[in-house]
């Protein structure tokens, strides 16, 4: 009898495993699985953690309303360590083992360029958030890639329009981190400004290494060149360090500082309470106090409630990514058929917290780059988002269609890259 009991026990266990396996398969087919990759350690950690939190908010909102076509959204995240080789491994694991429907991320453009190759090979859609190199939508474009936050070309184009209007800005000095992002951000701007103004000139350039802790030797060099405008293509902590070190030299009394891509990120504003100077001209991919709409306020409030802090711009990119995917699946009626999804997504409109009244972000078929309004502001006293004591204000708004590369430019760039 004892033996028989054992046998039954064994059978029951096997049966249970089988049933559980089936249930698991059934669940997996039910859910829309998004494989997220963000840095969660080191310098990009803030961007990654903010992205994860905002993506979760989007997921909770969508699932609370019953999901998409009756299917729930499921997010999985892995720290990509800002490493290309590691992120490629994670992306492959997501596709082959976790059977994700979509890839989403990443902060570093270098990692983005690597992951887009995995996406292309496996025909799994990769939704880019935050990383900004124009190359991904221009020269290195592949049909399964979409980017839901603006690229450096868009912020550079808005900046060129801003600078065109500043007649007194004639002598430019540029300082930025010595890698693709730093250079590209400046080059796009300078090329576009050159088309509008022939009375501007560059009086100097400096390219310290990324994460350089000490900018003081550069600051004296900049002061001695006496530019009207100092363009900085720093992001994050490098902007913070540069401002801290330039302050005692009274650099900001002697020239305008212009950082149009990432300088206006909230993490920079909050890092310098009481000391951030007035009148810096900055922008970012999302602003906590612009546009002044119900949607944006709600989004910022929810983020603050969840994390206890105000979001940096990366967060809104990830939030947008989840909504973009959800809307695509809803319209295409599938999360599995990538080609059908691409056909829908590349013409899709989707409303985001950063959209001003009367505008809805949309995707462009030619480059799968989201088309968005860009706002550039100046630092002004504003204590509504503590610990920051300055926020951006005196906004200049640039129409989405005025700051995107034309189809001809894109095709020409792709042709040139093939040679």
């Amino acid at each position: 009898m004892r033996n028989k009991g054992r046998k039954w026990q064994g059978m029951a266990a096997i049966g249970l495993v089988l049933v559980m396996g089936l249930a698991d398969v059934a669940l997996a087919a039910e859910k829309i699985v998004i494989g997220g990759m963000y840095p969660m350690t080191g310098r990009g950690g803030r961007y990654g953690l903010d992205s994860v939190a905002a993506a979760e908010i989007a997921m909770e909102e969508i699932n609370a309303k019953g999901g998409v076509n009756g299917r729930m959204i499921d997010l999985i995240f892995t720290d990509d360590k800002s490493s290309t080789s590691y992120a490629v491994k994670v992306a492959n694991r997501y596709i082959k083992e976790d059977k994700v429907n979509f890839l989403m991320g990443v902060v570093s453009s270098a990692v983005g360029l690597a992951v887009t190759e995995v996406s292309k090979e496996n025909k799994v859609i990769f939704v880019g958030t935050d990383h900004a190199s124009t190359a991904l939508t221009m020269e290195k474009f592949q049909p399964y890639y979409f980017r839901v936050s603006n690229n450096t070309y868009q912020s550079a184009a808005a900046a060129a329009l801003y600078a065109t209007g500043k007649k007194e800005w004639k002598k430019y000095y540029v300082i930025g981190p010595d890698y693709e992002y730093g250079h590209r951000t400046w080059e796009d701007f300078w090329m576009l400004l050159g088309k509008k103004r022939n009375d501007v000139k560059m009086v100097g350039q400096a390219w310290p290494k990324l994460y350089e802790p000490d900018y003081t030797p550069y600051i004296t060099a900049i002061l001695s060149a006496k530019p009207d405008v100092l363009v900085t293509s720093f992001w994050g902590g490098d902007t913070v360090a540069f401002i801290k070190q330039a302050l005692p030299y009274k650099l900001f009394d002697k020239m305008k500082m212009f950082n149009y891509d990432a300088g206006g990120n909230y993490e920079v504003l909050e890092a310098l309470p009481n000391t951030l100077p007035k009148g810096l001209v900055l922008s970012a991919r999302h602003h906590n106090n612009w546009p002044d709409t119900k949607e944006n306020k709600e989004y910022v409030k929810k983020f603050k409630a969840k994390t206890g802090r105000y979001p940096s711009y990366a967060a809104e990119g990830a939030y947008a990514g989840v909504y973009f995917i959800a809307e695509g699946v809803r319209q295409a009626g599938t999360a599995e058929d990538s080609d059908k999804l691409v056909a829908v997504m590349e013409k899709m409109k989707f409303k985001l917290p950063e959209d001003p009244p009367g505008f809805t972000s949309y995707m462009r078929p030619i480059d799968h780059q989201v088309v968005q309004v860009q706002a550039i502001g100046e630092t002004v006293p504003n204590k509504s988002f503590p610990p920051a004591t300055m926020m951006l204000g005196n906004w200049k708004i640039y129409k989405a269609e005025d700051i995107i590369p034309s189809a001809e430019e894109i095709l020409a760039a792709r042709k040139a890259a093939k040679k």
Partner: protein
Amino acid sequence: MDANLVAAQLFSGLTSAMTLFLVASGLSLIFGVVNVFNFAHGSFYLLGAYFAYQVVSVSGIPFWPGVLLAAVGAGIAGGIMEYVFLRRIYGRGGEAGFQILLTYSFILIIDDVVKMIWGTDYKSIERPESLSGPFALGDLSVPRYDLVVILVGILVAAGMWWIIRKTRFGRNLRAISANREMASCLGVNVPLTLSLVFGMATALGGLSGALSAPTRTVTPGAGIEVIIGSLIVVVIGGLGNFWGAFVGALIIGEVTAFGILFLPQWAILFSYAVMALVLVFRPEGLLARKGSA
């Protein structure tokens, strides 16, 4: 070239040099006496910066006592790392490999601990009121705070010279550096001395971090750039040589500062070029001498 500009650049080079020296001298001291290459040394710079943030900005302790506390805190953390972990690998076969693994892993551990405690946002400490302004130099100005950093660097260098050359503790250090077994036979308490040296050296790193906190970015990961800079400095000066770190830091600080003044677009090149030249013509470092910690 304007004389004021040259002077301003000289000061900025000196400031960088002193910040580097504080980290690199500790790195060199640990290598010279403990015979460990401490990859995690930059992380004590990071800890010093966060400790300073904690005691000055959060707890409201005045700036200078706060900086001192931060340095002591980093030193205690360093002493613990030596006592609990490093001590276990001394003299093991293939020790170098274990050293690299262990000290490198501490970079990651300390970074993550910092992130868990203080989060990922950038922290700020304000300079003391009396030092927040500039010091006029013709139509250019030099931050007053930088002058104090230079002064602290020189005082520390002098103090270390006194400790190493004139005290009993210093004599023990030199003895251990020359021959650990012999020193032990002659009654030097080697394990205790090693812990103290490690603590002292990491306190110097912490001091550098605390002093830099008002002018640099306090963020997880900030230790990495510092350890790279210090590595260049000790290679130039001679690994394990305290004064080598001083000379190396001065060379790197000033060469970088003046290089940037004349050729800002080649900024990254200078310190590596100096290192390459030293490696070609004097690979043991400018001031290398055996047993001269």
